């Protein structure tokens, strides 16, 4: 048996009793080392299987947490998710026997739904007064050596604060390091640092192909504009894009998208405002318009409404308000409002 075959057998966990394999391992230190690593892995997996799992969170508690998260998302300031008017062009009946298929373009405006997520932890010691012979940089250095970079250490009127810690454990370690360095025995206060993250129910609903995503980290505004335009073009949209950065460092993307639909050009303006400075703030997601096709010939308004609702439901939009009106030009208009549930 050669080494290659041995390595292959080692990937299969049932081959440990293979005699040829054992013979080879006796003679070949390199493969024997691989085999020991295999054993280490098998034993680690075995230990993990034997371990008593942590207690599960009761489902009603999970539910309460998730519903609280969802409520945050649906907060008042973002009530209007999208509002759009779709034009139904009643085309002359040119082709007899050919059902009139009308294209309905539903352009969804992305209004970010900020919600809160934990991005880190901070430790504070309150009212500890003067700490003689201690410089905050000392602690930064120690924490840096522990692998925690970008830590902010501040001493403000007797209150001491360490911010920018990635985990609760890091916060505990930092508190301990501070106590060791200063001899202060006061109890640390560990708090979560939360961040508002932009997100969108529609962005979540949208399948991959209906959403373009750009990681704008390290890109200039002009580069982002180009990247967005290119991706939209690939998806069949023409777009005018402008990316600006405001005084607070927040980036705004505005775009005008259009797509040839029959003989009319649909346009929509989208403004995306990036929120926060967290790890995801460089990700730009743009949902593409959702397209629904409805046959209207010989149907009552109520039937049209029902069909639009059914098709939207199939796209994951479960709560649209659909109305059909006849405009002064005699054209039917379908109006779709997507409202979010109000929780308060």
């Amino acid at each position, binding site marked *: 048996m050669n080494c290659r075959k041995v*390595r*292959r057998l*080692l*990937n*299969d*966990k049932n081959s440990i009793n293979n005699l040829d394999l*054992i*013979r080879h*391992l*006796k003679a070949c230190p390199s493969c*024997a*080392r*691989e*085999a*020991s*690593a*295999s*054993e*280490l*892995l098998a*034993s*680690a*997996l075995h*230990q*993990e*299987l*034997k*371990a*008593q*799992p*942590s207690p*599960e*969170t009761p*489902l009603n508690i*999970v*539910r309460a*947490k*998730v519903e609280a*998260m*969802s409520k945050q998302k649906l907060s008042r300031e973002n009530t209007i998710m999208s509002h759009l008017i779709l034009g139904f062009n009643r085309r002359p009946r040119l082709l007899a026997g050919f059902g009139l298929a009308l294209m309905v373009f539903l352009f969804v405006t992305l209004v970010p739904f900020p919600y809160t*997520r*934990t991005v880190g932890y901070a430790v504070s010691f309150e009212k500890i007064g003067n700490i003689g012979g201690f410089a905050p940089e000392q602690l930064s250095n120690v924490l840096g050596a522990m*692998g925690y970079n970008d830590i902010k250490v501040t001493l403000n009127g007797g209150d001491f604060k360490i911010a920018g810690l*990635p*985990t*609760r*454990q*890091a916060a*505990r370690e930092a508190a301990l390091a501070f106590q060791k360095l200063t001899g202060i025995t006061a109890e640390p206060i560990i708090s979560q640092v939360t961040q508002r993250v932009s997100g969108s*129910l529609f962005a*979540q*609903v949208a399948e991959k192909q209906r959403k373009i995503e750009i990681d704008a980290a390290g890109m200039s505004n002009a580069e982002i504009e180009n990247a967005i335009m290119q991706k939209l073009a690939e998806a069949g949209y023409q777009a005018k894009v402008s990316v600006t950065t405001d005084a607070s460092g927040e980036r705004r993307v505005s775009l005008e998208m259009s797509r040839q639909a029959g003989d009319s050009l649909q346009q929509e303006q989208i403004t995306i405002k990036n929120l926060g400075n967290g790890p995801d703030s460089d990700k730009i997601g743009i949902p593409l318009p959702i397209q629904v096709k409805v046959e209207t010939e010989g149907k009552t308004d109520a039937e049209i409404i029902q069909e639009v*609702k059914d098709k939207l*439901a*199939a*796209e*994951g*939009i*479960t709560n649209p308000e659909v109305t059909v009106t006849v405009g002064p030009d005699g054209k039917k208009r379908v109006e779709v409002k997507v409202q979010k*549930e109000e929780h308060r």
Partner: protein
Amino acid sequence: MSKNQMQAVSEKFWKLLEPIHSKAEGFCRRLAGNRDDGDDLYQEAILAALAKFGTLRDESAFKAWFYRIVVNGHKNHRRLPWWRRVIEQIGQGDNDIGDHQSHDPSEKYAARRYLEIALSALKSNERALIVLYELEGWPVADLAELFGSPDGTIKARLSRARQKMRKALIPLVPQDEKNKRREDGYELPESSATAE
């Protein structure tokens, strides 16, 4: 859809989640490497699943559908380097995924440390595959459904993942341990030993 109908849809979701809740939560914790991150992952997966629940056609496919959302969610999660996760686990009982039987703390964490180092050599999808197969006991056929690949592909991926994990552990094979194992673990049966 009226508010009542939406309520009913949501109730249905939670009803479908109930029988798999315990397993799914445990899976998220193992996938994330610790309890807090796992619970976050789980909640975010539920939120995402609720938002697209309307697109689920076949309720009997709920489990695979939900797990797929978890796996995708994990892929997008920011991951900590393995040593950071190990530090987090050591001495942090309340964020641990589970209790190992041993009372010796060094031994108690050794297995998890080895496992975490090995798992860290894997890509997100591979990690999910190994955790489901080795720790959650999913059969290959179920994994094939979840990942949308044929059985053979799943088996090949498992094998490749095991190889990556093994390679990650090689530097941790102790020199003397290796010799000990050569003597204890791979002792040949009398007959074949003499035959050589």
